[in-house]
């Protein structure tokens, strides 16, 4: 029994089935804990009053949106380099959740921006980069949807993810540069003068909850993808009959 055992879809299917309940329950409990910190332990901010509580969603969602993209790029690169089927499936399983978190980050950013800056949307470097990240996610998902052949779709999607991953830092930098030129001083979202330890703790707990959720959802999705692709094999047929 070693790591390679789980690289085979059949074994990973079983392993994922065992892991899903743990991650789901973990995500639920952590979310409850995180929400408790967000609403009952974290004090009112003297500048932003209660509106700042949005960061407990906004910041973890923004972290996740970028991190999931990087993980997708990682799996894509592994798949292209070593021709491992499972890594392509992981990349596919992660994309919709990444797009969801990107959308949440944008939505909460707008709802936070309105009371803080008096505008639903500002062309701030972070928000703009996040919007472009959403475009990248949509592009990748659309490319997968357009390609019927599984192998071609896997590789094409991974190549697009990779060139996007190289481009995202450049985009972020360029938008930031553009932003400072056009607005004089950029509005810094994270410049909360007194970031209390309890706030940081709340964001971390929420971020870990989001992690557990992402893993659980991705595992469910990857199990479905495995079953669909391996339906000709004996073990998949046996699973279908027994379920």
């Amino acid at each position, binding site marked *: 029994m070693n790591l390679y055992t789980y690289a085979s879809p059949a074994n990973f299917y079983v392993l994922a089935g065992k892991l899903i309940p743990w991650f789901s329950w973990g995500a639920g409990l952590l979310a409850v804990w995180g929400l408790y910190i967000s*609403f*009952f332990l*974290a*004090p*009112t901010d003297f500048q932003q*009053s*209660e*509106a700042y*509580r*949005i960061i407990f*969603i*906004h910041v973890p*969602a923004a972290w996740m949106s970028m991190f999931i993209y990087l993980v997708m790029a990682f799996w894509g690169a592994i798949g292209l380099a070593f021709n491992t089927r499972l890594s392509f499936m992981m990349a596919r399983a992660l994309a*919709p*959740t990444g797009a*969801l978190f990107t*959308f*949440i980050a944008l*939505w*909460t950013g707008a*709802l*936070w921006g*309105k*009371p803080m800056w008096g505008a639903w949307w500002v062309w701030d470097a972070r928000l703009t980069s996040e919007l472009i990240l959403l475009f990248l996610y949509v592009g990748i998902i659309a490319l997968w949807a357009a390609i019927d052949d599984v192998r071609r779709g896997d590789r094409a999607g991974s190549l697009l993810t990779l060139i996007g991953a190289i481009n995202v830092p450049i985009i972020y930098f360029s938008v930031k540069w553009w932003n400072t030129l056009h607005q004089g001083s950029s509005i810094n979202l994270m410049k909360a003068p007194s970031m209390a330890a309890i706030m940081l703790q709340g964001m971390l707990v929420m971020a870990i909850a989001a992690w557990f*959720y992402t893993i659980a*959802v991705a595992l*469910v*999705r990857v*199990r*479905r993808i495995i*079953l*669909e692709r391996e*339906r000709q094999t004996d073990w*998949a*047929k046996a699973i*279908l*009959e027994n*379920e």
Partner: protein
Amino acid sequence: MEWASWSDFWHMAGYGLYVWGSFGVTAAGVLIEVILLKRAGADTRRRLKRMQQWATSLEGEGQ
């Protein structure tokens, strides 16, 4: 404890719309994703099962 009453809690010092709008949409997004995932999983399994039954019925006819 920060809140004097439940209505205070929902009011969020006048920022209720923004705070609950954020948390609400997040919860809705997660919920929708989970429901869609459940449904897609069930659909896939049902479809694959039917395809399999069809394949075995064809084999039966062939013999």
